[in-house]
């Protein structure tokens, strides 16, 4: 097992001429679960897409285990799983068939090895009971888990997910938390969310983006600690929410 170490230096992204999505992002992401918070339009999806090598940055550098994200794209994609914000499913296929199809695309050409991997991914997201049902019969939460299974094919060491819990009911959201916590013991996971309880449930580190800049990186309890003494009413102990709100208020 290789531990992933992502180093981001002065990363910039500009769309068209006038829209600056990211300005001078510098941070490092190590092993474990890394959460990404921020307002709508702050640049979360842009950052995740760059890390997933889907779009190219305008400037700056990203290395993954010292490999350059762009010159060594293929080597990095080998170790990468990505779940975008809106993932398309082939609803006439069964869950198993769709994963098998994606596994072929990922270059798993050996039939037996592919089957083993697909079944492993299905087990990791607890879809064993419905793997032979058509995706059109899946609930929203099952589809989301299938999306994660797809990202797990090829045993990635780095898993990137854009709002994996959006729109999920509490049980499904909890399923995703459990999957993330379990996977996060062995691989690096980077994901974005609007739901602060997601951060408290699974993240070891997090970053907050605001208008294209990083305004916080650290541990959840360090973010929570920011709330202390900033005039926010605090119950027993400061929560991640308290910290987030005071950080954003101070950044105004």
């Amino acid at each position, binding site marked *: 097992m290789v531990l992933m170490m992502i180093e981001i230096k002065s990363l910039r992204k500009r769309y068209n001429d006038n829209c600056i999505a990211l300005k001078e992002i510098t941070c490092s992401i190590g092993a474990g679960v890394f959460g990404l918070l921020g*307002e*709508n*339009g702050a640049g979360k999806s842009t950052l995740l897409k760059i890390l997933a090598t889907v779009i190219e940055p305008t400037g700056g550098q990203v290395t993954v285990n010292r490999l350059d994200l762009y010159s060594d794209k293929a080597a990095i994609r080998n170790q990468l799983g990505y779940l975008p914000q809106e993932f398309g499913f082939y609803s006439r296929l069964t869950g198993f068939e769709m994963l098998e199809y994606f596994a072929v695309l990922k270059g798993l050409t050996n039939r037996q090895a592919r089957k083993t991997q697909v079944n492993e991914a299905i087990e990791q997201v*607890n879809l064993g*009971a419905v793997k032979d049902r058509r995706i059109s019969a899946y*609930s929203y939460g099952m589809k989301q888990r299938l999306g994660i299974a797809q990202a797990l094919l090829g045993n990635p060491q780095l898993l990137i997910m854009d709002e994996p819990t959006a*729109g999920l009911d*509490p049980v499904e959201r909890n399923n995703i938390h459990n999957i993330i916590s379990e996977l996060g013991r062995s691989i690096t996971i980077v994901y974005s969310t609007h*739901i602060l309880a997601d951060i408290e449930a699974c993240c070891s580190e997090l970053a907050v983006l605001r208008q294209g800049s990083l305004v916080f990186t650290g541990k959840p309890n360090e973010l929570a600690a920011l709330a202390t003494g900033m005039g926010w009413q605090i119950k027993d102990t400061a929560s991640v929410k308290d910290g987030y709100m005071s950080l*954003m208020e101070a950044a105004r």
Partner: protein
Amino acid sequence: MQCIYVTCVMKLITPKMDRREKNMLVLDSITKRFKKNTALNMISLSLPKGLHLLTGPNGAGKTTLLRIIAGIIAPTTGQVSLNGISLFSDSVRFKARIGYLPQKFGVYPEMTAQKFLRYFADLKGIPASVAAQKVEEVMDIAKITSFHNKTLRDWTKGMRQKVGIAQGLLNDPELLLMDEPLSGLDPQERYYFCNLFSQLSSERIVLLSTHIIEELAALADSIMLLDKNKLQFKGPIPRMMDTARGGVWLATLSEGEWNNKKTELIVSSLRDNNGLYEVRIISAVRPEITGVCSVEPTLEDTYIYLVSKDDSE
């Protein structure tokens, strides 16, 4: 929980009509069948003024129920009334008193928010003399004033959601129905709107569906849990949490124990504890694990406890 933003809301809240009459939404034995599927089975409830949450698994029928109350679809059987006004025999008067945000809210992309809201104000029959003023008010409350001259085409999903919330407030409704109003909103926006709904509910009935009950728990007067076509619980949140007492357990498992047990356990949280798994387990009976101890349920535990009753799927 005090909110520093919400002071501007009070002017909207002042009721225009006399609401000393009994302010109550009453649902009587609502059943809805789609072909052979029963989506809702004998739902009865009465809601007074206040903030009420509707929650439940995806596909449980929350949206169907809200659409019935909003008069979009008819129930197979049952009655709905607001302050004694029947949705079915007096539907014009009923609908004039509600504001509704559907789950999928569409906007006309070529309009600005101001034009769009004015269009809705006209559709809702708000007199022209006050419509402009009303549009300004709701834009202010929904915090969209600063984008007023951008066409909605250029707005993000979260910003459009706020236009949808604003639209629901235009007619100063006695009943505000909102289907997942916080979806797509970022943490600050969620915080602001949670407090806004709470303030609005001091003068009217606010019924909203949500998947993230924790954010509204401290503000809500009651919660309804819809699952398997039925209301599995209705009442104050602390009482809901009482139902799970004695059904939540904490255990520390090794990697091997976890792998053996994980398919048979309902787990509400999983944490790493120095290489071991610290697991919160939902179970009506004591799980057969050494060292397991009973713990106080959280809101999330309670929800999982209630929806996992009788079947573990």
